[in-house]
């Protein structure tokens, strides 16, 4: 396995601008995942397995499964994104890259945001794209499948953003994986409520505007605040 190397600017060049630094961090994380595809695929398979366990556990009653489907898919997505979150900063911390990121001329919150974006692209997005298939297993009507996938598209970035704070707080801590879930899962409860609730609301004929607006509002808020909080947590971890 080849180690991923950050392209170093030569001494004669100007230091990279903020956008260029973000692009570097983003591409680097993306390349890292592409070279170790098993990690991303494992999270996706975990997601599929957890969802498939429910009909075996609660019985294959179609009406019951239809009402349960949004919640089950959402909870499984939550758990699956926890798996990959633990490695968001841990690998960089181990090989010393994190210290270089802290010393970079690019503001740390922007680099953190780039890393979170790369994380979402390789975990949350895959889960959202895979969800229609699972929804079919639960016999959801076509309109609800679209709502479920949209709610996951809106909600999974929040999992990467809020989860990133937890990942930053647990960098270098023993038993980080369990602790991470303990910290992050209570914080993402509103995302779960509005995400899974949107499918129920659309089935009840209430429309999805309210739920999607709230998810969007939380997303905008988290886009601004989560990188700042995660950057503060990283500075504390490495001081």
């Amino acid at each position: 396995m080849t180690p991923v190397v950050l392209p170093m600017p030569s001494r004669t060049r100007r230091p990279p601008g903020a956008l260029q630094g973000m692009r570097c961090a983003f591409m680097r994380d993306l390349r890292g995942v592409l070279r170790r595809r098993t990690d991303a695929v494992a999270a996706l398979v975990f997601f599929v397995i957890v969802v498939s366990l429910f009909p075996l556990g609660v019985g294959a009653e179609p009406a019951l499964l239809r009402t349960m489907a949004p919640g089950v898919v959402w909870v499984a997505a939550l758990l699956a994104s926890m798996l990959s979150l633990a490695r968001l900063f841990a690998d960089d911390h181990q090989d010393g890259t994190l210290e270089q990121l802290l010393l970079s001329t690019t503001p740390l919150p922007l680099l953190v945001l780039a890393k979170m974006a790369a994380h979402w692209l390789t975990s949350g997005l895959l889960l959202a794209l895979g969800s229609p298939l699972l929804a079919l297993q639960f016999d959801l009507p076509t309109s609800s499948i679209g709502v479920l996938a949209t709610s996951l598209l809106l909600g999974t970035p929040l999992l990467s953003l809020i989860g990133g704070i937890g990942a930053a707080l647990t960098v270098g801590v023993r038993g980080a994986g369990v602790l991470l879930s303990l910290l992050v899962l209570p914080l993402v409860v509103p995302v779960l409520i509005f995400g899974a609730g949107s499918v129920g609301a659309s089935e009840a004929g209430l429309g999805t505007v309210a739920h999607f607006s709230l998810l969007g509002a939380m997303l905008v808020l988290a886009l601004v605040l989560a990188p700042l909080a995660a950057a503060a947590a990283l500075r504390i971890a490495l001081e």
Partner: protein
Amino acid sequence: MDSKGFSWYHFAAPQRFYRLAGIAVPWIGALAALLIAGGLVIGLLIAPTDHQQGDAYRIIFVHVPAAWMSMVIFVAMAFWAAIGLAFNTRLAHMIANALVPTGALMTFIALWTGALWGKPTWGTWWVWDARLTSELILLFLYVGVLSLHAAIEDPRRADRAAGVLALVGVVNVPIIYFSVKWWNTLHQGASISLAKAPSMATPMLLGMLVMALGFWAFCIAVSLARVRIVMLERERHTAWARQAIGAAT
């Protein structure tokens, strides 16, 4: 010593605050005992029986103050954590740290008495009502802060990391407070508000206010007692802490 009168920074030194807390703890503790005893007398003996819920409602005198304190302490913890992060003071982090177990205890009491109250009146120990759920999440957040603090060995780093988590989690407290209005479900609305006249009999209200003040005093006394111990633990290498430990044993 500041000769120009009182200064807030005077007690920011752990050594001075240790002494101040030592003087305050017995007084506030006695006040708490008096208020809680008085509140219990008013609540259990004087307040009239509710015409709908019978005597079962009387658990309100423990349930509501505990629920208030569970939220107030979380905000207080986040406040001190913010002060500690902004000004890098040791004392603020120690106070935030000392508040967490009391806050978790209050949250647990609120949930526990709520379950005991729910059984005779709603017919169930637990419902997935928005307010109950948010209170449960608050308990999880307290546990999260506690376990993050315990997992990091260096106390100063642990303080700051737990402080960031407290500030992130404080978003949850308004959600709890407004949840009854947002998702109007089984849990009743607030009985007391500043905007309108209270919807309960005067002795009930009096009992609840006395109990609430008693819980405030209890939480302050317990937290101050705990912060003294945290201080001694952290400052055990200093002469004054050695002296204090020597004097105690």
